[in-house]
Structure formats: C-alpha cells, structure tokens
C-alpha cells in the first residue's frame, strides 16, 4: 500500500497541467521522485513539488496506490489522466480534464469539477459529489468516440453536451443536465434523474433515460410507454434523421 497526500501550496492562480498526478506515475516512487515529476504552470515548466506539498508513505503496485488530495485544485487540470488502476480521492474542486482517458481505478471528488471530466474514458469509475461542467464524458474535438467504458456518477448537476459522442459506459446524473445531453452518441447509457433539454440529437445507438425534458428534438419516434425498474416512461427511438437506433426514455 502506498499513500500519497497532496495539498496545494500558496494558491495556484493560473492553470497548471498536472497529468502526472496519477497512481500510474506514483507507483513505487519515493516522495522525492514524485516531487520532481514534471508539471506545467501556464507556459512555464515546473515540478509537482514546486506546486504542491507532497507526502508519500509506503510503496506498492499501481492498484495499491491511494492519492489523497485536499484543498483547492480548481486551477489544476488533467488529474488522473490515463490512469489504469488505484484510487484518487479529492477533497475540493478541480479544473478541466479530470480522469481523461482513464481506463481503470477510481477517482472521487467532494466538490465540483470543470469541463471535460472523464473525456474519452475507457474504464474505471469517476464519482463527483458536486457539479460537473460541460462535455462530461465527451469526445475530444473532432473525435468520433468519447467515453467508451466505465462509469461516471454526478450527485449534483452537469452542464451542456454531457456524453457527446459517447460510445459505451454509463453516466448517471442525479440532478439536472444542460442542453444536448448525449449529442451524436453511439452507445452507452446516460441517466439524468432531473431535467435536460434536447437530449439525444443525432444519436445512432445507446440509451438515454431522463426525468424531464424541457424541449424535445422533433427527430424521435414515440413507441409507447414502457416500465423501467418499475417506473413508467415514454419510449422514443431515433434520431430518425441519421437512421439512429438509439432509445430515449422520458418519465411520464
């Protein structure tokens, strides 16, 4: 078991890119080695040790690494990028691209996350207790697949373009989502317990379950009602314009 505790030093005011904060990068490394890992602050190359107070104990394989982060990380991007295993626990807010391309392990955040969290995620689990920004679990600009696997849970709300170009995996939002949830998605499952607007545009495959839709896109075909887990939903299929086979459930 290896535990790494990270706290921000005096307020990070401009964006820092810290893709090296990841169990994969920390596994088996000493405190000093971890502190000397590269990071960027604005256009200046620096180290994790310069930006953060880092304390590491023990050693272990990637799956046995636990990273505990406490403080304000709202200007720190790319935490846990590409991680394959291990645990990252964040007490605070974080900036964009949290857990992008991660394929395993677990990240939990007690606060809010900015846009692109879980971008192109392949596996693992992301739990966000606060709110999420735009493009949660979405694809990179121009890419045809966003999230392919894993699970994202948001206890608060999410902004627009949630699960855009999603090809697999699962996103659950307990609150509301912004416009165009599941835009162009091609697989996977999105559950929004609150409300959203214009979900599932251009969807080819996949499932979207919504509590309330403020505005429906006129591209879905109503198939009747169906019960999911004992709750009655209106079932739609579409997007018919792209000959889509996606399914959209809206609570009655």
């Amino acid at each position, binding site marked *: 078991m290896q535990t790494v505790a990270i706290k921000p030093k005096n307020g990070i005011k401009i964006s820092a890119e810290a893709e090296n904060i990841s169990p994969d990068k920390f596994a088996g490394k000493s405190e000093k080695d971890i502190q000397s890992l590269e990071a960027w602050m604005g256009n200046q190359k620096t180290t994790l040790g310069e930006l953060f107070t880092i304390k590491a104990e023990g050693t272990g394989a990637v799956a046995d690494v636990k990273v505990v982060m406490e403080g304000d990380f709202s200007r720190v991007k790319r935490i846990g990028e590409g991680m394959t295993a291990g645990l990252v626990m964040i007490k605070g807010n974080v900036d964009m691209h949290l857990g992008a391309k991660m394929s395993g392990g677990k990240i939990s955040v007690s606060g809010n996350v900015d846009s692109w969290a879980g971008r192109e995620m392949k596996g693992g689990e992301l739990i966000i207790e606060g709110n999420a920004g735009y493009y949660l679990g979405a694809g990179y600009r*121009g890419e045809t697949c966003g999230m392919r696997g894993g699970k994202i849970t948001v206890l608060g709300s999410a902004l627009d373009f949630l699960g855009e170009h999603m090809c697999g995996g699962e996103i659950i939002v307990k609150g509301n989502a912004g416009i165009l949830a599941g835009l162009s998605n091609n697989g996977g499952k999105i559950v929004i317990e609150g409300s959203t607007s214009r979900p599932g545009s251009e969807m080819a495959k996949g499932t979207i379950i919504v509590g309330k839709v403020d505005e429906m896109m006129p591209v879905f075909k109503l198939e009747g009602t169906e019960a999911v887990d004992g709750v009655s939903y209106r079932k739609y299929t579409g997007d018919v314009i*792209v000959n889509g086979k996606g399914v959209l459930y809206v609570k009655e």
Partner: protein
Amino acid sequence: MELLIKNGAVFDPANGIAGDKTDISIKDGKIVDKVSSGAIVIDAGGRLVMPGGVDAHSHIAGAKVNVGRIMRPEDTRAGIKPRTKITRPYTGYTVPNVYAMGYRYAQMGYTTVFEAAQAIMKARHTHEELEEIPIIDKGALTLFGSNWPTMDYVREKNMDKLAAYVAWGLLASRGFGIKVVNPGGGEMWGFGKNVTGLDDVVPNFEVTPRDIIVSLMKVNEMLGLPHSVHLHCNNLGKPGNYKTTLASMELAKQVKPSKDRQVLHVTHVTFNCWGGTNWGDFESKADEIANYLNNSENVTTDMGQLIFGSATTMTADGPVQYANAKLLHAKWANGDVELEDASGVVPIFYVKQVSIHAIMWAMGLELALLTKDPYKVLLTTDHPNGGPFVNYPEVIALLMSNKKRQEEIKTLHEAVHKRTKIPGIERELGFNDIAIMTRAGSAKVLGLLDTKGHLGVGADADVSIYDIKPDQTDPSAEHAKIKSAFQSAAYTIKGGNVVVKDGQITATPMGRTFWVDASVPDEQKEIMMKDIRMKFKNYYSINLANYMVQDAYLTHPYVVRAGVIPVEVS
C-alpha cells in the same frame, strides 16, 4: 562550401550505378567532378547512398489540406513534438502542420515533393503554405480538367486557345503541370451528378471526358511541359473502374511525347484498379493494369499504397467524396471552386479485417510487383488518401521482402487470398528498383531528371545516406532493419547542406518552389484573354486582378521554361 561523400554504396540508377563504391563531390549546392582537399568529408562507411527522394504525388499544401486540418483537430494530437532551437513544433499524422511536412520528409531522406492538385483560384493558399514548408523543394500541379475555359476550347477544338489558357493558368497559379481529376465530373457535381465513363457528355459544354483528356495531352506536348498530363481517372472509387482506367491509358496512344517521358501519368492506381460490380464481389484488377503497363510505353503510374490506420481522403473529385461520406457515415467537407472544380475531404480508418481495405492494400503492391519496369510505377501513398507519407519505409520494406508480405497477409481479412494475387507473388525488389521508384523514376516522370533524382555531375546536391550496408544486408529477412533505416536517414543533404544527421534535423534552409513558365505567341494569348475577361465579368466572384498568384507569394521560385513547339498528332 565543398563536401565529399566517401565510401558509400551508391545506388544511382539514372547513371547506371548500382551499389558501387563511388565518391560524391559537392560544391555550391551541385554535384561536381571533384572537390579540393579542403572539402568536408562524410565517410559513409559502406552504407547505402541514394539521390534525395522525389515524391511526384502528395497532398502537402493548399485549401483541401487545410480543410483536413480544420475538420480533424483529433489528428493534430498525434505526432506532437515541441519546438527545439532549430525546429518549430510538429503536429498531426495524416494532416501535419506545414513544418512537420518538411521535417518528416527530410528525415526520410526526401528532398523534393510535389503537391498533386491546386485549383487556380485557390493557388494563393497553396503557395502560402509551400512557402512555410521548410527544407524540401516543391511545386504544385494545377487542375484543368473541369475548368470552363478548358471545356469551351475542347468543344471548339481550338488547341491554340487551350494551350494559351494552360500556359496562362500555370502562370496564374504558379503551377508546374496539368492535373486532371475526374474530367467533367467536377463540373457535373455542381448539379449533384457525375460522369460514369469516358463518353458521357458534360451538359452545357457538350464535351466528354475522353475529349478533355486527349486535348489536354495534345496541349501538354504542344507546350513541351516538363511533366505530362497527370490523371485521376473517372469512376474512381467505384467497383469495376479498372476498365475506365485501361480505356484512359489507351488514350495515350493518340499523342506522341515531346520529351523523353510518358504522355500520361495515371495516379494512385490503388483507387482505380477495382474489379467486380459491387462491394460484394469487389476484387483486385491491379494485374490487368500491370499487364497493360508491361505492353505499352507512354504511360506511367504511381501506387497510392494503402496503409492500415488513420487516413484523410482529400481530392478534387467531389462526387466520390460524397459517396465515401455516406458509405462511412463520416465527416464530410465539400468544396465548390466556382468555374474550376469541386473538392471533398473525408477521414477514413483502414482496417485489416475489412475485406475491401485488405484487398486495396494488396492492389498497390501487386501493381508495383507485377509491373516489370520500376520506372512505370512510382512509390506513393497518395498522402494522405492511402495513408500518410511517413509510411513510405513500410512500403519499401513490403516491396523488398516477401517474408514481410506473407507475415502481413496472415493478419488480414481472408479476402486477400481469394480476390487478389498478392499471396502468390514472390518477387522482391532490390535497392536499385527502390531508388528508381522513389528517385530516378519520380524525377523522370516529372521531367526533372536533369537536376533531380540522380547523382551525376550537374545534379542538385540532394543526397540521402541510410544506415544499411547493402552488401551485408538481406532485405528479405531483415525487413525491420530496412524499414527503420529508411524511416530515419543517417544523413540527408539538401542543396549541399546537411539538413538531417542520424534522423535529427540539423539545419532548416528554405527549399525552392518550381513552376513552369510556358510561352505562347502574344496574339494567341490576347485572343484567349478576351474570353477569360468575359468569364470574370460574368461568372467569377472575384476580380481577375485578385486572382493571379503574385511574385510576392514565391520568395524562393525556380522557373522552368517551356513553350509552344510543333507536335505530331497521329
């Protein structure tokens, strides 16, 4: 500056040197007889020495390349390399940034590359990019196949006016030669239609693709242009199109060359040697094309080899790109260049287990291996249509090693066994063949063999040295070594400067832009210009004064002179 390359195993097919230990002397950017004792000596130590690589067909600059970049931000993520003291940043794989174009070609030992298609109206953009591509010499072929003036003069059978228009179009675009893409089809695509063969009549112009190709070939020889007509055939991308390709090649018999080269270059044959009638019975007819090439003169081709993985198709063939986008459910960019042509850009991912892609992979190789004379088949991937140019070393290794091909075939869709001949082809090309397909042949096809593609006295001092000892290497068994050697040249020398050492860029001089200034009698030009001025007045959205590429766009020009000479038409 003087340079002496000693102890190289030199392959210089244009001068009949095949692996001999020959010294190469360089002075002031040219190959010379001998240099003084003060020359800097590079000891090649028995390693492979070739002329700098020449690529006659690649999409490296211009409007559609940039559309590719804009529509594929995800591609930009690949191949990122930060700037160094010498180099600017690299980005992209199928549609790299301008700097990476120059650096990556130079790192493979290439020193001359021709952009394969620019519309006259978009030529300023092409030259803006060419001027930023470091190191390599370059040029751009100009599209004439669906231009309204071309079709007007073809209908009127007025070859003098057509010659004047081509000469003026090359000046207006600072272009190097005549490119013809799906002749007539570009115009018809403006109405959502396409031509389906050489004898379809283009509405409003009453000409056929056959007329357009033959007329442009005649005019090409009238003007004595260095390169021949460079043809992207009709029906490209449709099963059964090999018949159209053969019929187009047949047309070359109607015109005699004005120079020691072909009269028709049929490009990226991987995309137009397709048999079958639909995607179900799709098969390779590359053997038929190779058979034709073996029994004819006057026609050359290039492979357009398919590379598995990501590619970006981009062409002036608008209708084929619409079909691709529909078939693949892919992103699609469509362009209409007013009176000149159409265009389209569609990303694609070639997959080993897709039967059509596996068969297409075989086609380029079959063409190269079944055609006896390597001067008739150039090595290209039609970058980035078949795949990015950085994969040339992969293609070289495939051509040189049957073992590698057999290993690859095992990983492909089984259709490659039934619908192609590649599993049974045992021929393995040698270093001399490769030097022809990537150097001497390309230079000859382009009409630049006086200064490019060879190492004789008077040639440009473009030399590449690779980390292979030909006499101690068995390319068939050691194909991985061949591939890695061609990926990063031990030395690339461009115009007498060492630009690459051990695969790393060491200097970034700017290359030149080649264009052809073809003269026609003034009165002939004046008559033609009357028509052009009318076209601008009535149809173009821009002014003639804003149309021409000005000298300011070419800061490193190299002008090749040509002009009207009599031609025998049989």
